[in-house]
């Protein structure tokens, strides 16, 4: 069965510093991986995806993610964090029709 894991419940960074939100996956076959962000009392917003091609995927709001097949990881990164990036981040893998989500990582960016 497909699954993703986000090992950190919370990540704290200072504004202007680089941020990384970790995700590892377990799939049979080719992985279709996604990152979504959820702001308080809002729905899930799509950030980026990896289907095939370059291992470094660029997405919305300056975020990028690196697909690493040998480490089965798909970490979300941003070179310089903003306070407005504070939110709940979900990694997901596609399994037939459905998205299977990780448990989420709360990102807190302090000024």
């Amino acid at each position, binding site marked *: 069965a497909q699954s993703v894991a986000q090992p950190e419940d919370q990540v704290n960074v200072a504004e202007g510093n680089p941020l990384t939100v970790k995700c590892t996956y377990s799939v049979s076959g080719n992985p*279709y991986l*996604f990152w*979504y962000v959820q702001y308080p009392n*809002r*729905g*899930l*917003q*799509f950030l980026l*995806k990896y*289907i*095939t091609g370059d291992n470094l995927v660029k997405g919305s709001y300056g975020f990028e993610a690196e697909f690493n097949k040998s480490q089965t990881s798909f970490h979300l990164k941003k070179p310089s964090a903003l306070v407005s990036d504070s939110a709940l981040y*979900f990694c997901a893998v*596609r399994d*037939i*029709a*459905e*998205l*299977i*989500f*990780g*448990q*989420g990582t709360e990102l807190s960016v302090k000024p």
Partner: protein
Amino acid sequence: EPEVTQTPSHQVTQMGQEVILRCVPISNHLYFYWYRQILGQKVEFLVSFYNNEISEKSEIFDDQFSVERPDGSNFTLKIRSTKLEDSAMYFCASSPSRGLADSYEQYFGPGTRLTVT
């Protein structure tokens, strides 16, 4: 930019009552989904719908749940007899198709918070 909309934003109901959650997917999308998120937990898949029938469903989606696309725009989730444990945020999502790489992402609505008392 087109978006998925959901109504109501918050629904309070008594245990045993029927509720219908409504969604308007993006107009040219063909696949529709319901997910739920119990407070503090991960987002869980409930059901996917294509061509007027259920294509996949999870173990959560038991006989108490049903989905329908009654017209060309709305997509509804009905819970026949609500239980306390049905309290959650329910998200509708849609996608253009599943067959092309560019269309794999799903677009989510803002959610309906269901509170069962």
